[in-house]
């Protein structure tokens, strides 16, 4: 067994990454804190036009806006660490509660589209990588170009027109069939819920699906040219063993990186998709917050997205360990 603190041990590796993640979170929280000071005067946003001078001063004191900036930052950080992001200027409810209410919708949407993108992307990528010259591959590759080149909102509107307006198979917007399950509002347990998630999930996944497909295909072509594939053929192994036992696993390391980054991208793109489909998630909430200069929500959303990115990247790093023994670097 390797000593605990050596590089090469998983513990050390994760510790290292955690430290980097903390740094990222500190920087992001500093930026979101600065939103309060640079995006308009919060007092103006909170009180009506006819508020008196005294009322304004009272609110300033309540919010601690007269304290030195570092004291304010410290208070902000302490609150954030306890999950307290303050009150929304507009709705006058705790921001953390608002986010928690809306989080399940976004996470379910992102999860559904990630599953669609990863599964379809890898399967089609492997197929087009192996059957490079077949007609089906050529058609898949041409169609996939549409996925990269069309913006999400156009695809979304197109799908709504086709499946909701024209064919009337699926609902055009909103999140139906929500069931409360121990504090988590899910729409994945009812047929209505499934019907309403299909269009936004497909829309959101299309870009990532294409990226994964093209990456897996390119990696597959590269790996199939390598010496160890040739040597595997020379040993008389069956095609199935060569393609899935040897080639696919070797394509996975770069693919995992991109998938990790792209799930972050899914969350970012979900802002647009949620707006198009009026999906009641955090992205839609963020857009509405921007309209009303609702700074606490914007700041909290920023920190929340950064946290998701950091967590996903940490998971990706751990997955490298699982997939590639060379990164494990045991004694040799």
């Amino acid at each position, binding site marked *: 067994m390797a*000593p605990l*603190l*050596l*590089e*090469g041990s998983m513990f*050390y590796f994760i510790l290292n990454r955690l430290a980097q993640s903390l740094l990222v979170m500190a920087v992001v929280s500093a930026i979101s804190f600065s939103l309060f000071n640079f995006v308009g005067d919060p007092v103006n946003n909170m009180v009506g036009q006819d508020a008196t001078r005294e009322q304004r001063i009272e609110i300033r004191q309540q919010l601690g806006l007269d304290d030195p900036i570092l004291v304010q930052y410290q208070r902000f950080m302490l609150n954030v660490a306890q999950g307290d992001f303050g009150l929304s200027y507009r709705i006058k409810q705790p921001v953390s509660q608002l986010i928690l209410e809306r989080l399940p919708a976004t996470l379910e949407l992102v999860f559904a589209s990630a599953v669609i993108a990863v599964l379809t992307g890898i399967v089609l990528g492997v197929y087009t990588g192996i059957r490079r010259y077949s007609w089906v591959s050529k058609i898949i590759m041409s169609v996939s170009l549409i996925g990269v080149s069309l913006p999400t909102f156009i695809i979304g509107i197109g799908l709504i027109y086709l499946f909701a307006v024209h064919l009337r198979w699926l609902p055009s917007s909103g999140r139906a069939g929500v069931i409360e399950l121990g504090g988590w509002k899910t729409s994945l347990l009812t047929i209505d819920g499934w019907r309403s998630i299909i269009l936004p999930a497909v829309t959101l996944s299309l870009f990532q699906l294409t990226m994964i497909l093209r990456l897996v295909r390119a990696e597959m072509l590269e790996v199939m040219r*390598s*010496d*160890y594939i*040739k*040597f*595997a*053929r*020379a*040993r*008389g*192994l*069956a095609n199935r*063993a060569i393609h899935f*036992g*040897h080639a696919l*696993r*070797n394509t996975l390391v770069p693919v995992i990186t991109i998938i990790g980054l792209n799930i972050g991208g899914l969350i970012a793109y979900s802002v647009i998709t949620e707006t198009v489909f009026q999906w009641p998630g955090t992205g839609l909430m963020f857009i509405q917050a921007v309209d009303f200069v609702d700074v606490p929500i914007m700041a909290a959303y920023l920190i929340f997205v950064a946290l998701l990115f950091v967590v996903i990247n940490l998971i990706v790093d751990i997955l490298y360990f699982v*997939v*590639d*023994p*060379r990164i494990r670097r*045991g*004694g*040799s």
Partner: protein
Amino acid sequence: MTNLLEINNLSVDFPSRRGQVSAVKKVSIGVAKGEVLGLVGESGAGKSTVGNSVINLLEPPGHISGGKIIFDGVRIDQLSNEEMRKIRGAKIGTIFQDPQTSLNPLMTIGKQLSETLIETLRISGASAREKSIELLKSVGIPYPETRLDAYPHQFSGGMRQRVVIALALAGDPDLIIADEPTTALDVSIQKQILDLIKSLCKQRNLGVIIVTHDIGVIAEIADRVAVMYNGQLVEQGKVIQVLQKPKHDYTKSLISAVPSGDQKLNRFTVVDYIDGSEEKVAMKNVGDHWLSKNKTSKTHDTAVLVKNLSIEFSIKKALFRKNRIFLKAVDDVSIEIKTGESFGLVGESGSGKSTLARLIAGLYKPKSGDIQIFGHNVLQKSEKTKTSLIRRKMQMIFQDPYSSLNSRMTVEDIVSEPIRFHRSTGNAIETAKVVQDLISFVGMPSTSLKKYPHEFSGGQRQRISIARALASRPEILICDEPTSALDVSVQANILNLLKDLQEELNLTMLFISHDLPVIRQMCDRVAVMQNGRICEIAETDKLFDDPKHEYSKHLLGLMPRMDLFRL
């Protein structure tokens, strides 16, 4: 006796946009059980293509366009893919050149072995494990039970090639095709691997085809040899007969081009059979030329002085220093290279010879020690400008001519870049003139200036690298294995060119090679390196005739014994 494998009039074509390229033209060879056939030729001779067509793994669009391949009495060149797959591994095993790349890096070797065993022998997983241990033992891997669960990167190059051999033997084949099995390995390991192949061939009564460019390997292992040139078989016969009394002119020149380790010759013998392989070097009276101006070396007798130089690389990092592990790549090394001298550095891979060269060239920072170039301590931080002036006097030529030239620049841009950077000419017209001269000094036509690197062969690219190095008007040339990626005939040309340049321009040369005969021909003095330390420094002839250090003796003993065959 009928042969195990019989190839009759085999032709292989590669269709391309400019018409058919015949890689193999009507080749007929055969190999019997218990016999090692050497298939020798230079790059592009079609020798690997013959091997690949036997197992039907030609790179598309290559295909067999004529002839027959008969294995064990059955014609196999027309079998379907699925039928052929059953022959591969089970009847014909293959060993490829580079053990670094021929094993799947993400799979334990035990898994790769048992997978192959289960496929070819149709046995159960448990007995496959037993058999794997047996196989690893038979190819000489110590502690096979524990090594089964190791990944390829945990083995050294030689051990990895043993694993590859074990994999090739897994299906208990009758024929082994080994395609350059030792080219990527050190001399000492080369000998072990060749001995292993030879003994397996005798023990198991296997037919073996060794495809190689190295006549030394043939002399070491083969019973019979077939020589290929330009897709054709020019000669075949018993090894002793072919090497001692070659009938064909090509074989003659190929054998004579192998540098000799036993005596010093004035020039390398050039393979004159290949058309236009020797471009005449048009370099006379360069004393007045731009190249020879601006010399500083005349005032110093010592070009490079290295004192107690050390560098270590960390191979295991840790939070606490006591847990870290360092590799001493260069360990307390002191050498002195005189001005105008050709100094050789020899050792196996990992001995630290390239690292030492890079330290001298300033590409690495040493941990301790001193480097003086023309009397100036280049490690002193206080005199940075002077140091960079001195550094300019030193140029490197790298091993791989394919990756050391920028593929998006024309040859003219590549060669003129150092001149333009240092502003060492008066104007653009003079620069163009100097570049013209440089390219003709290295024996290339001036039409090549407008071309890009990919349009040239390996030898020509190495000439371009040399021209680029000369463009900085160096006085010290560091050559790091400049010919080990090249064919023998091309090697002779490049080495002759370097010798001529050194004489004409009075260059100081640090010449790094693992190839002892080459060192003997090129160098005045040699240092032998092992594990980062210098074992012995001696005059070249003295070292070769009377080595003092044990390791030098060991290295010299590994030189291929070509002299047995020389008349």
